[in-house]
């Protein structure tokens, strides 16, 4: 009899290993993030003041889109080869299993985005004082993207044009994170304390950790029929 903890660790290890072997799945969102951000100066002009003012929004939208792009991969291969069905059938809590998958996914897509963001922020002339707040806000916000994305990704996995549908369903749900995340950076830029929005982001993260694994597990069961 395998314990829940062992099963959990096994799924986490397996997903990390799989992601390391398909490194392109982690690198592509990063490239996408860099490209989207570098399109903005070309479109709105290279004035440093304007770019600095827009930087929080640009970086957050770039990170949001990159996360959105990677969400489709989360359950797809497991759905196609039947592993997801085995996970649903196993006596171990499915909510715990999907949580392990989300953590692995975030470590290999969300975390690199957070690490790349300061470099892009410098390129957009974001003041150095706001960069640490940006990183902290992304560190709190991108896991929420992953957790909520997993929920909808489980519902749409394997559907025709599932990726497009996933974006359509997820973007409205990402609004609060986007608002608090970019307002934290904007407040830091204006020399105000970013504590309020950061705490709200942390609150959203706690809420997402508490609720989404159950909803994701339910979604997986619905999708498996």
């Amino acid at each position: 009899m395998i314990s829940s903890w062992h099963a959990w660790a096994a799924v986490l290890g397996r997903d990390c290993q799989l992601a390391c072997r398909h490194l392109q799945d982690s690198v592509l969102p990063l490239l996408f993030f860099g490209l989207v951000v570098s399109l903005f100066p070309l479109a709105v002009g290279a004035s440093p003041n304007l770019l600095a003012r827009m930087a929080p929004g640009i970086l957050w939208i770039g990170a949001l889109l990159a996360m959105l792009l990677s969400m489709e991969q989360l359950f797809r291969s497991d759905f196609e080869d039947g592993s997801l069905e085995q996970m649903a059938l196993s006596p171990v809590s499915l909510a715990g299993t999907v949580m392990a998958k989300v953590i692995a996914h975030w470590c290999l897509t969300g975390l690199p985005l957070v690490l790349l963001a300061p470099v892009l922020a410098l390129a957009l002339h974001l003041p150095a004082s706001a960069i640490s707040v940006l990183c902290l806000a992304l560190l709190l916000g991108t896991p929420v993207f992953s957790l909520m994305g997993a929920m909808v990704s489980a519902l749409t996995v394997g559907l025709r044009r599932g990726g497009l549908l996933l974006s359509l369903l997820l973007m409205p749900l990402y609004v609060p994170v986007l608002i608090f995340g970019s307002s934290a950076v904007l407040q830091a830029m204006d020399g105000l304390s970013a504590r309020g929005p950061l705490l709200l982001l942390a609150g959203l993260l706690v809420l997402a950790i508490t609720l989404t694994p159950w909803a994701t597990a339910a979604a997986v069961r619905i999708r498996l029929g």
Partner: protein
Amino acid sequence: MQRLLALKNFYAFAKALSPWLLLTWVALLAYGVIGGLVWAPADYQQGEAFRIIYVHVPSAFLSLGIYTAMAMMAAIHLIWRVKLATIWIAASVPIGASFTFLALLTGALWGKPMWGTWWVWDARLTSELVLLFLYLGYIALHRAMPRPDMAERAGSLLILIGVVNVPIVHFSVTWWYTLHQGPTLSRFAKPAMAPEMLMPLLAMIAAFGVFYVWLALLCARNACLARESTSTWVQEEVINNA
């Protein structure tokens, strides 16, 4: 057997209720329209243009009300597997989406002469827009699913996810707005309305509500017939009405 009885009974109940709802709707609508467009005086600030609230406010009210009703039905569906709940949701979605669109449209038409712009990123407008996306998302997800029962369960879960998110979105937009723009435009102090303006408005809200129930019952009856199309009561019903 139980399910069949439930649908059959529901059909009969809905059929009996229909003419009464229609009668109530016509009466409320007549009073609301005449009271709002003729009897109520023009607003001293907004002139005749204020009368659009007789469509706008009931639409906005129903767009949220229908979503709430759908969320309750979705919970009932997922917990107790009641088929009738999914019939009600399926009937409600297009009506709710239409009212949400109508609320946005009338709001924009009213905003142009009053605020000088079609759109502001006010908390209420933005949450209404997100609500429209949630309705449309339900329709898109429902259509994409390969099997009807899977589509219904996935849709119910999506509605429940949405209903947790609507308040969060609303408050986040409210705080965002007050953080950045200051409370110049975001808070309209609701003026105390004169009774001759308020009564038709309440009548219109009630009329829209009754209209929703009437229309949803009609769609639901249709769905009942379609689902039970092979059973004898449906065939008798169709023959008797042919």
